[in-house]
């Protein structure tokens, strides 16, 4: 089993703490069936000529602590069979972007240290992909259409009466934590709001996921693109998959991992969305 990236530096007052859903994604993406799929789809070189192939761009939307993207980045060699991979994270929460940056960098360094058995100061990417940056943005709004080869989304999937309003350019004062003039009450309000963005999914827990699904056909690379989406039972995953297949153009959606350990309403699954 590949080690889970450390998130001990993250403040879970305002960033989603890795939980069963995050770990299901780690298990799914490192399972032999999924690494075989990814290694076939994103080979380091073409089988016939041995020529280089385009390095895949992996984007995690709503990265939170960054634990999933850090795992994929640090263990690229195991997951893709090579390290010619680029990774990028997005989140609407600036604290999450900052946390993810550190989680990914720490994971790269940890893997590098265990590879060489001697601590190094430079983050040499011997087993790891190249991490580009976190980007503070709504879903994939800042990413050029057709560029994403692999998209990962652990959405706000809990059904709630209302969907929290998305933050705008300057609506969140991230400096408030060290600001003497700000009351602990307003910091608590802000942090509760930021956490709600990570789980509150509106009707059927699907309002944000539906917006992402709308973007998938244009945001993914037309041939290579694949998306991994986490759903809970209340999201009606069978309906979601049927809707994706109804897009036509060869779009497929299959469940590639489930979490059967907890019965009840939060039973989880990972759906792979791609054109075979």
């Amino acid at each position, binding site marked *: 089993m590949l080690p889970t990236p450390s998130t001990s530096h993250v403040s879970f007052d305002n960033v989603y703490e890795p939980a069963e859903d995050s770990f299901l994604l780690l298990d799914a993406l490192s399972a032999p069936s999924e690494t075989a799929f990814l290694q076939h789809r994103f080979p*380091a070189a073409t089988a016939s000529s041995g020529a*280089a*192939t*385009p*390095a895949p*761009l992996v984007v995690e939307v709503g990265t939170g602590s960054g634990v999933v993207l850090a795992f994929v980045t640090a263990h690229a060699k195991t997951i893709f069979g090579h*390290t*010619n991979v*680029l990774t*990028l994270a997005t989140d*609407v929460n*600036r604290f999450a*972007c*900052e946390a993810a*940056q550190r989680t990914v960098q720490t994971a790269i360094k940890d893997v590098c240290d265990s590879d060489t058995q001697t601590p190094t100061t*430079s*983050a*040499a*990417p*011997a087993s790891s992909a*190249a991490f*580009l*940056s*976190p*980007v*503070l*943005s*709504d879903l994939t*709004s*800042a*990413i*050029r*259409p057709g*560029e994403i080869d692999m998209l990962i989304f652990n959405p706000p999937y809990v059904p709630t009466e209302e969907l929290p309003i*998305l*933050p*705008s*350019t*300057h*609506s969140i004062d991230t400096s408030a934590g060290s600001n003497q003039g700000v009351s602990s009450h307003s910091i608590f309000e802000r942090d509760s709001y930021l956490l709600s963005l990570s789980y509150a999914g509106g009707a059927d827990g699907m309002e944000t996921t539906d917006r992402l699904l709308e973007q998938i056909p244009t945001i993914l690379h037309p041939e290579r693109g694949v998306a991994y989406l986490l759903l809970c039972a209340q999201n009606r995953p069978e309906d979601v998959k049927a809707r994706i297949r109804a897009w036509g153009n060869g779009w497929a959606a299959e469940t590639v991992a489930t979490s059967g350990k907890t019965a009840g309403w939060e039973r989880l699954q990972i759906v792979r969305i791609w054109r075979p």
Partner: protein
Amino acid sequence: MKVLTVNFLTCAVKTCKTSPEAFPLHFRDAELAQQDLEFNPEFIKNMLLRLDWNAFRVTTSELGFSTIPAEKPEGDALNDETLLRDLHKVLLETQVMEGKLVCGHCAHEYAIKEGIANFLLPNHLV
């Protein structure tokens, strides 16, 4: 953010998505930092295959890198280690820590703070 990142970004304003002027976004007042990373020529070759070279040329000239050739290296040029090392330095080791990214279509400015670009839009543009 690594300089390479901007090769995959565009303006977050919906009406700019189809405009050729919205890509690449333009760096303004960029403060750069260097991070040493192990040189991996295979990585650079694979990465070049997906790089938009014209956009990359625009970006590098704005940031003051002058050694980037006009044409994307192919064939024998990919054995030129000096060139690959130059590309490694610009694309992977160079980080933009502070500054702005500006859309060439709507002129909206996205602030970069501590290496993180803010693409959240003001309410009137959402």
